[in-house]
């Protein structure tokens, strides 16, 4: 038997280490983040102040939540352009409800998740049952959900939220631990997402579908139900991100989310983090670190007093740089 064994295993294509490459990505991103923080910190010392670092981490939470949901969708070879619209609608609906109807947070939270789930479920229905390509389906619902925000707000905007919303968005959940509640929420969501992706059947089915949906179907995996669930979760997480956003900033307009192109930012951070746009491979830690990276870059542009008209272009260049460096490494592992 030994002759068979040696004959079939070609030593030249032996064991390329997958884990090492992934860690490298995360390390590279962390180094980039520290480099930006130190570099800008030298020029503008207040950039390295505790309050600014807290601000940057906090503002990466919204991106991180949407980025995680986008990562799941991209793993299935899909894309969800409607996340920013769902985020905006949720921010508007619950921002207004918190003041006009004095809705308490404990009511708003499940309602928000349910609303996002319904919107996401509709995306999943379009993709998995009607077989509409995800980019087209969610481009449609992007406009649809974005339009609902205008209809619902009817010219109003959120200028302030109720104190318990504001507390949720800014205060520390655990007294003495200087970590704002949203950061803990992101950590919990990221940990849960990691567990699902690596240790639950549902997560492995997502990866299998992204690698080869036909093979996954042939192996007895329910492709349609899995896709429906992925888009549903994406909607729920986007709505949750909207709630976090409005609680933290105390403001929302009819173009919250869509105006900043959060859908594109979420795709960018997933790709920066090492998720493959062709599907089948995802890196949740990379996504979370990528969201911090993007938040740091955006804040750095402000601190460097770059004129506001340059923000979008500067952000784009940084994204391209990060994705290009990553892409070159994965071509030549």
């Amino acid at each position: 038997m030994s002759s068979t064994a040696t004959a079939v295993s070609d030593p030249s294509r032996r064991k390329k280490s997958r884990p090492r490459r992934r860690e490298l990505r995360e390390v590279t991103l962390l180094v980039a983040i520290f480099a930006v923080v130190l570099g800008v910190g030298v020029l503008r010392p207040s950039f390295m102040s505790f309050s600014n670092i807290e601000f940057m981490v906090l503002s990466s939470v919204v991106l991180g939540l949407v980025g995680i949901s986008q990562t799941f969708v991209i793993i299935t070879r899909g894309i969800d352009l409607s996340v920013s619209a769902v985020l905006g609608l949720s921010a508007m609906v619950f921002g207004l409800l918190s003041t006009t109807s004095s809705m308490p947070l404990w009511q708003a939270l499940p309602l928000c998740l349910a609303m996002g789930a319904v919107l996401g479920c509709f995306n999943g229905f379009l993709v998995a049952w009607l077989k509409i390509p995800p980019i087209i389906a969610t481009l449609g619902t992007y406009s649809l959900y974005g339009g609902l925000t205008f209809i619902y707000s009817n010219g109003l905007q959120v200028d302030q939220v109720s104190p318990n919303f504001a507390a949720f968005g800014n205060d520390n959940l655990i007294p003495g631990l200087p970590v704002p509640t949203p950061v803990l929420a992101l950590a919990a969501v990221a940990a849960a997402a990691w567990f699902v992706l690596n240790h639950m059947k549902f997560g492995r089915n997502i990866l299998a579908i992204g690698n080869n949906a036909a093979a996954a179907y042939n192996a007895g995996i329910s492709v349609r139900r899995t896709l429906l669930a992925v888009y549903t979760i994406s909607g729920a997480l986007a709505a949750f991100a909207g709630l976090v956003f409005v609680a933290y900033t105390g403001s929302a307009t009819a173009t919250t989310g869509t105006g900043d192109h959060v859908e594109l930012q979420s795709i960018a951070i997933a790709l920066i983090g090492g998720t493959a746009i062709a599907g089948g491979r995802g890196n949740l830690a990379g996504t979370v670190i990528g969201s911090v990276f993007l938040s740091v870059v955006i804040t750095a542009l402000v601190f460097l007093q770059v004129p506001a008209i340059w923000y979008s272009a500067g952000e784009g260049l940084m994204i391209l740089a990060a994705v290009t460096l990553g892409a070159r490494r994965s071509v030549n592992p």
Partner: protein
Amino acid sequence: MSRTPGLLAATGIDKRFGANSVLRNVSLALAPGEVHTLMGENGAGKSTLFRILAGIHQPDAGQINLDGATLDLRNPSAAYGHGIYLVPQEPALLKELSVAENMFLGMLPTRGRFPSRIDWKTIRGQAQDSLSALGLDVDVRDDAKHLSIAQQQLVECAKALLRGCRIILFDEPTSPLTGREVGILFSIMRRLRGQGCTLGFISHRMDEVSEISDRVSVLRDGAVTDEVGRDGFDRARLVRAMVGREVIFDRRRVRREAEGEPVLSVRGLAHAPVFSGVDFDVRPGEILGFSGLIGSGRTEIAEAVCGLRAKSAGSVTLAGQDISASSIGDIIEAGLVYVPEDRARHGVILPMSIRDNATAGQIGRLQRKGGILNRGREVAIATDTMRRYQVRARGIDQPVGQLSGGNQQKVVFGKWMSTNPKVAILDEPTRGVDVGAKDEIYRLIEELSAQGMAIVVISSELEELIVLCDRVIAIYGGKIAAELKGADVTAARVGAAFLGVEAH
């Protein structure tokens, strides 16, 4: 698990895809513990029949019985449930997932209550054990994308066994394999048969079929034309059943010593560590064989010669002109073309029509002033390609993806030959092509060489090299290991050379 499966019988199977009738009243019985081979030209319906038995397609009429009980094979999982597993032509392993996970796809064991975790330890252990049992030494934690096709096929076998499947169907497994890998696959197939498994097998290669089969069924145009047991095995009879006419199999070409100045000269071509020190010449009207195992560097050398791949040293001269540093477009223009091995990936654009494909190699020459394409010329070239290369299709606007493998290859040929090259390098020109079409392709190659074209045929099929070539160069480990010409071009010498046994 070790129980021998019962008789698997398909009766009166009809299958249509749209207007295309693929199987007509086909009956096939796989007896317990036999290796039952399906032969037939491409498009005869062999794969479709296996796919029906494996639950991937559902028949329009007919029924499938196992030990007398009628089966409802609505999807592949249902087929696994009855112990039937298909190892597909291109193994469909999920590239980014580990080998172990691939083996347990769709049946990942979990432990604990909600949230129940996947039991990776059990998965890895069982996966490693079942691969070791097949003699495959790979780390099951490695990504499936790092496996060779031969290794992937063995992983598919292990998947079948893990699912308790005892009827394993192999859809043309050997066409991407080297001779040595085929030997390994066969030893495993024999072992499975020894353990009581029933095996289905599809192959175009007569030697393989006679080596492994207990029974052979021949399909032609969607119907069974012959069925013979091991005793009644006769090549001529099988070929006749397959193609419906006589094919001259043992044709031996007169091996000519080509004269005149070389039209293509390669000197000192190197790109460490893939290949080095490659010198060879081809003369007009000569057919030069390039033999070697997959991975020997033969394809890489050809690609480097044609400018498709980097080289670190060496010169390539085409008809007196140095093309070592020319662009791909200039090389084609100068008269050197490379017809790649993997048609679907590099050779043709499957969704596009015969017309678009046939003219793709010379689209630049079909422009009128202002860059508008000359449609009349396009139609003329495509029609001429279909006629000259005997492409069987509805018309020049039929998408190439709808044609059989042999006809696709003829379109690829036509595409390149319509540029009137001086030298053509053909990489595995008959891979996945049936006997009838193979013969036609050989005739085409000989015809082109008779017209003065120099042709390099890269092949891992001994028979092909011997039937076709004037001279054979054996590549081993990225170097030219031997050069054989005239009476030396025999199966024994060519075979020994490309296994690295015979040194120059």
